[in-house]
């Protein structure tokens, strides 16, 4: 009988444990049963103890140079092998670039299904219920699975993380990847980072979001100024990124980044469901929009109807003054 939860942990590019791992392990604890954490990558062995602290009873580490850069073909064989070995009832992966690429292929190799990008999971008698946004965030869908294991990818910052316990012990097992280079059919030719200065969008406590209503790329300077004063970051709607006014890496929303600041200031953004999907857990939204019927206002705690060109300079000046006092 399959039992327990297998969590695929993830390391960040600078070799730390991606915080989403603690969220997955928190969810695993609430589901109940034995918890195994798998860590795949190169240079990830040192993170095993941290996973134990978050409640994993067993950590399977596959630390192998062939996994240095994510490629589905390289990650898949160890992921399939570990899942078969552990024989869990539930498998959790993060909805990250890696998780969203790996999970559907893992599901297919195991003849099962995956519910992608879930924001809530619960166990009801012997069934897992996976809840996820659909229709660009306009709807929520709940799924159950006909087969096993029940695989779910989880949206970052949607679930309560496990609390770290010092001195927690886990059985740590090292395994080779068991992948030969000829099994990896893809080849990475080149990788470039879009340079992000200052606070990372995902970590920012304040995000100033700009939309098509900004009218052009130059106007984003004003948003950057405000973000700088508030120690925050600038985000953008897809319309803005598609127009090339601001880098793709700043896109907030369904197909961009999910952000969770304490305060989101939306300027010239209409509030399409796909944009709101990226800020659905933000409690304090301010919207500045010249259209009194803009749908962003429905989700906003404070609404200012007006042209941003008239509002922003005075607002920024006042914020600066208040910050200084």
């Amino acid at each position, binding site marked *: 009988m399959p039992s327990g939860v297998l969590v695929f942990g993830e390391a960040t590019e600078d070799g730390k444990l991606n915080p989403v791992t603690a969220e997955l392990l928190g969810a695993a604890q609430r589901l109940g049963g034995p918890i195994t954490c798998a860590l795949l990558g190169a240079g990830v062995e040192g993170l095993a103890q941290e996973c134990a602290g978050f409640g994993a009873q067993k950590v399977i580490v596959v630390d192998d140079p062939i996994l240095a850069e994510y490629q*589905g*073909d390289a990650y898949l064989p160890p992921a399939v092998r570990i899942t078969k070995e552990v024989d869990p009832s539930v498998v959790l992966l993060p909805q990250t*670039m890696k998780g969203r690429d790996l*999970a*559907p*292929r893992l*599901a*297919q*190799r195991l003849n099962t*299904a995956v*519910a*992608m*990008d879930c924001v809530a999971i619960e166990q009801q008698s012997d069934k897992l*219920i996976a809840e*996820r946004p*659909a*229709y*660009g965030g*306009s*709807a*929520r*869908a*709940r*799924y*159950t*699975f*006909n087969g096993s294991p029940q695989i779910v990818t989880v949206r970052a910052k949607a679930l309560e993380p496990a609390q770290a316990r010092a001195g927690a012990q886990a059985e740590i097992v090292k395994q080779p990847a068991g992948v030969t280079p000829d099994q990896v059919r*893809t*080849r*990475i*030719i*080149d*990788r470039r*980072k*879009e340079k*992000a200065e200052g606070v990372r969008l995902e970590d920012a406590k*304040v995000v100033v979001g700009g939309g098509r209503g900004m009218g052009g790329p130059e106007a984003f300077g004003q948003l950057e100024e405000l973000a700088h004063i508030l120690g925050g970051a600038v985000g953008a709607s*897809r319309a803005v990124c*598609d127009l090339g006014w601001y880098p793709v*890496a700043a896109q907030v929303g369904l197909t961009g*980044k999910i952000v969770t600041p304490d*305060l989101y200031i939306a300027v010239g953004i209409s509030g399409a*469901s796909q944009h709101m999907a990226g800020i659905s857990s933000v409690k*304090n939204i301010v919207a500045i929009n010249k259209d009194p019927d803009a*749908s962003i206002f*429905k*989700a*906003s*705690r*404070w*609404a*200012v*109807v*007006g042209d941003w060109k*008239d*509002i922003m300079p*005075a*607002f920024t000046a*006042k914020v600066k003054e*208040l910050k200084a006092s």
Partner: protein
Amino acid sequence: MPHIICLAKQVPDPETPASQFRVDEAAKRVIPAPGIQPVPSQFDTIGVEGALRIKDKIPDTTITILSLGPDSSRDTIKHCLAMGADEGVHINDPAVNEADHWATAEVLAAAIQKLAPYDLIIAGRQAVDWDMGVVGSTIAEILGVPVITIGKDVQYENGVVRVERVLMDGFETVEAPTPCVVTVSNELGEPRYPQLRQIMLAARKEVKAWTVSDLGIPTPQNRTKLEALFVPETKVETEFIDGDTPQEKAEKLAGRLREAKLI
């Protein structure tokens, strides 16, 4: 003569205003908004655009559009043909009306095998109804071919596909031998819009209609069950900041944020 198969799903218009978006909770279905026609899923026309850019460079490329769906899905195929694709295949079978993502992938993979040989299969990063993002990769696994997801640029030459992928904080370029599946994202660019002449030409292009039995596979079983579909509640009390001048509104707003200790 490269052969590219583009997957295209018809969906309710994702730009339906929120005020007109309704679900039938008992039937677990979206109620079509009055007067708003279903459309080709956005990332799928972007995929066709990617295929057409290859055809622009290699003119003897054949592009086949493959769609599974009800009668109206033919409109989606016709739209893609009017964009410049060559042939259409419509899998229209009540037996798979309720197909989940895995049953859909199995049917599409069987159709692709029937359309072989093929070099490239292009799918959307996700269909914009359920936003699941699994069918492209699942098909690659069924067919045993490599897959590159979330592409913004797709180049094909001599049995090698080279895809620029969108990462969270940048881009990477990945190569794979064909046949191969590629899924595409909006960063690829705007899909071309059919001109009148092309729409007329497309009327003459062939759309084959197949059922599951034409594919020589048993009707695939669903692996998931949709238990509920609903519109999530958003209850926010909005304060409209008033004032006689923009300056007054702006200062009042800043004051509110200070009171709430947000700045």
